[in-house]
């Protein structure tokens, strides 16, 4: 495995492919020619790339839930319900956690127990075990584009099966589906494995089938500063483009401060366009994730959090919004709760679709700082790789130049401490080894000192913990009780 950011030859791809398809029985079913034909036979309204391009042109924000259960019929029923009752524009298929760890035997056990217990014992749809036929049954039963959403470090076989199965969008990336989702898988390995996935999609593109690719924006989902997730999103976007991916959706997880969140979505698109300008025919869209951290247990309060996420997505004009449910604090939601989250979001998004967040001085400053921070990180990544982004990324994680807060991976430095400032925007309390300039460091420091002064305490890990709990307790900024 010699990692570099260079489009794989078809030979290399096909060689590795042989091994990949042997990882589980169902791999043998995959035939790329048949898959291309199958995609050509699908009606337009099942094409994620097209749907996203339309939404971008119309400047509307589409809604998409998360959802997946163990068995095929129940999964179809669930998605139909979310489309009809929840008015979802785009559909997901969330993959179960065993499949994410390539534990297909355990997934098989989960399918068996789900049949016996007559309820889903898995937290998602085990697509590899269900194989191409199972996937196509899902696609054919639904009247909307369906995306694979998961959290799989080695997602090669899953990609082969679901794409041949008719899915038109694939989430993840070598960083975003490793660092927050694994404990001891090297970055080198996951970038390599995701080059495979991107090369596969590049192959589909060459054959005229555009598959949408979405790096996972929110990472660990809690207090991730925009410049961290932007850096990762842009790296994964570039790595995907190099392998021939054309339709890319970059993501960001809501922090909660409106100005920062709008600035984040705008800079994400602006920066990505700049960095990706060397690739032709790339179509960029954005996805906004409603708050991914701790939720209030009370459903009414949860509706408030969900709505605020919907409002922010619309005001920021994200191309789509991933929706939470009023059961968020309690685990996997019922289909009714899932539809509720969608309907609330749709109401807000529709009411705000003709309203825009206007530049106001503060927005520009926020955008300027996000861009500065992101560029300082990315410049160093390129430096470390001596111009090669893949190598640079591996070295940047070793050096803590890329670092994701609260991540489980041992390949992550874990030096960062983020905290909210007095207006709820997420800042760096400790920026670890991020290669920041004095200006950036001071900007963050001043913002947090202002809050510390207001709360009469020094910014500390306790402040971070207070912030982590705050939204669940009905606040944004975790101020100490007075």
């Amino acid at each position, binding site marked *: 495995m010699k990692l570099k950011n260079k489009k794989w030859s078809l030979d290399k791809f096909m060689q590795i492919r042989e091994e990949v398809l042997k990882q589980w029985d169902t791999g043998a079913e995959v035939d790329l020619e048949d898959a291309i034909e199958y995609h050509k036979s699908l009606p337009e309204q099942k094409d994620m790339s097209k749907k996203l391009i339309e939404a971008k042109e119309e400047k509307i924000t589409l809604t998409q839930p998360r959802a997946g259960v163990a068995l095929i019929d129940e999964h179809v029923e669930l998605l139909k319900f979310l489309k009809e009752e929840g008015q979802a524009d785009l559909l997901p298929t969330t993959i*179960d956690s065993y499949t994410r760890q390539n534990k297909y035997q355990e997934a098989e*056990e989960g399918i068996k127990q789900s049949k016996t217990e007559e309820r889903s*014992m898995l937290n998602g749809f085990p697509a590899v075990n269900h194989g191409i036929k199972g996937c196509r049954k899902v696609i054919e039963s639904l009247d909307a584009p369906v995306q694979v959403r998961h959290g799989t470090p080695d997602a090669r076989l899953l990609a082969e099966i679901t794409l041949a199965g008719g899915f038109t969008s694939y989430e993840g990336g070598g960083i975003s589906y490793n660092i927050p989702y*694994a*404990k001891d898988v090297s970055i080198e390995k996951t970038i390599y494995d995701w080059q495979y996935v991107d090369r596969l999609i590049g192959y589909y593109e060459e054959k005229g089938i555009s598959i949408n690719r979405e790096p996972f924006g929110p990472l*660990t989902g809690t207090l991730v500063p925009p410049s961290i997730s932007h850096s990762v999103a842009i790296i994964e976007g570039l790595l995907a483009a190099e392998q021939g991916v054309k339709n890319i959706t970059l993501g960001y997880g809501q922090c909660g401060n409106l100005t920062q969140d709008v600035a984040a979505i705008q800079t994400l698109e602006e920066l990505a366009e700049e960095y990706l300008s060397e690739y032709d025919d790339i179509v960029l869209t954005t996805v906004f994730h409603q708050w991914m951290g701790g939720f209030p247990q009370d459903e009414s309060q949860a509706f408030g959090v969900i709505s605020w996420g919907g409002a922010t997505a619309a005001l920021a004009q994200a191309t789509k919004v991933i929706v939470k449910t009023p059961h968020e*604090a309690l*685990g996997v*939601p019922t289909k009714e709760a899932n539809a509720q989250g969608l309907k609330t979001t749709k109401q807000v998004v529709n009411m705000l679709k003709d309203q825009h967040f206007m530049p106001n001085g503060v927005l520009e400053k926020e955008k300027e700082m996000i861009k500065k921070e992101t560029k300082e990180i990315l410049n160093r990544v390129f430096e470390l790789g001596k111009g090669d982004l893949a190598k640079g990324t591996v070295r940047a994680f070793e050096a803590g130049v890329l670092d994701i807060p609260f991540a*489980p991976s041992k390949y992550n430095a874990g030096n960062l401490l983020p905290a909210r400032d007095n207006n709820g925007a997420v800042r760096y309390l400790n920026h670890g080894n991020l290669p920041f300039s004095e200006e950036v460091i001071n900007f963050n420091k001043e913002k947090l000192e202002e809050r510390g002064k207001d709360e009469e305490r020094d910014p500390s890990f306790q402040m971070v913990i207070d912030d982590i709990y705050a939204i669940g307790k009905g606040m944004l900024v975790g101020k100490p009780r007075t």
Partner: protein
Amino acid sequence: MEKKTLVLGVIGSDVHAIGNRILEEALTKAGFEIINIGVLSPQEDFINAAVETDADVILVSSLYGHGEIDCQGFKEKCIEAGLEDVLLYIGGNLVIGKQNWEETKKKFLDMGFDRVYPPGILPEEPIADLKKDLGIKE
């Protein structure tokens, strides 16, 4: 008094890392010796860590709904490893979907856990229970 030792971890294919980190912080502050084996931990890792450190308690988190499958046979394996007296605590989103909490609790008590916690509780609650169960005076 000697510090009591706790093995802390997130079981199975679960990657929820933030609660685990906060729990470590809170339990350490409360005066316990914490062996944190982190996320993505199979039953064996909990048991090995408990044997090696002569732990008093194993505290299992499960946030992703597979807890029901992941914990099958855990108590039995503990007994096999000579850990019959080690307290077993578990907490989180233990099953898929919104189910009756009392039923879920009973299910895990029947599986041999000594304490079972619903999602959303603060660390103070298990800490108080630990002190009670381990006979620690404030």
